[in-house]
């Protein structure tokens, strides 16, 4: 709670500032049947289109539908570079993190079987004095593209580091 920046002033370095707007390497996200079902169950959906392929197809969907907010899981292989884009790995003195907000915009439906590619960029870094002490607000934007290269969703996130 009494964390202070190393310099006593801003924790935003020129190096961090230079990363704003730089798009990350693409990270593969697999949208699979089990992932859709597990996410839908956690949110409490009962609509069969999120669980059963035949029910989804009967209502005109390509396959089991990925419920709102589920954009697959990043593919992470031990020993290979982690699936965490560099935008999230900032060298800052604050160890704690809170999720400040989420905004997901869809341009097309996502279904099981889709292989998405996510690229993330930092969009803004701001500092604020909060109830918990000095905070760094990290804004990111992740674009999810399908195999045809079409953007199917954009996720904008706000992380609070303190």
């Amino acid at each position, binding site marked *: 709670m009494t964390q202070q920046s190393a310099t006593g002033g801003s924790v935003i370095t020129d190096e961090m500032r230079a990363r704003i707007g730089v798009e990350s390497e693409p990270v593969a996200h697999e949208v699979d049947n089990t992932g859709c079902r*597990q*996410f839908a169950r956690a949110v409490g*959906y009962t*609509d069969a289109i999120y669980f059963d392929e035949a029910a989804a197809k009967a209502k005109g969907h390509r396959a089991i539908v990925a419920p709102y*907010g589920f954009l697959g899981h*990043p593919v992470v292989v031990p020993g290979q570079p982690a699936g965490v884009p560099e935008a999230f790995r900032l060298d800052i003195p604050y160890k704690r993190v809170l999720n400040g907000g989420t*905004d997901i*915009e869809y341009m097309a439906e996502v279904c099981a079987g889709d292989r998405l590619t996510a690229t993330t960029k930092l969009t803004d870094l701001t500092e604020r004095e909060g109830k918990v002490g000095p905070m760094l607000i990290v804004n990111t934007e992740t674009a999810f593209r399908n195999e045809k290269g079409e953007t199917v969703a954009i996720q904008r996130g706000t992380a609070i580091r303190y």
Partner: protein
Amino acid sequence: MAQVYFEDVSEGQEIPKLVQNCDSQRLVLWAAGSGDYYQIHYDKGFAQNTGLPDRITHGALKHALLGRLLDEWAGDGGQVRRVACSYRGMDMIDKDVVCRGVITGKRQENGSNVVDLEVWTEDPDGKKTTPGTAVVELPARS
């Protein structure tokens, strides 16, 4: 539930609310479903060591619940396009999360029937913890 149509909705109208209790099983289900394994959501000692009174409900779960609120309202013919929300207040484990929405406008956009809403979650005392906005497409009767 019967399909809701674009012609039938108007500004100021509230949509049916969704109430979900977020107990430890729900938070573990969400951890697995979302891939967010941060311990403040399921390890009481860990949560308290970070200064929290207890485990807290994931912000992203509240976002997804707002998505479900709208998905179930929009029905088979509708489509949730966008939900944006801010996590302003914490919701503690075992509490109800009440998801609500009010229509703020309706418009035509590139041939689609679009409804704008104010959405939010509130705690059992009626305090808004997750304010936001949403965009939903609805089918038309004609």
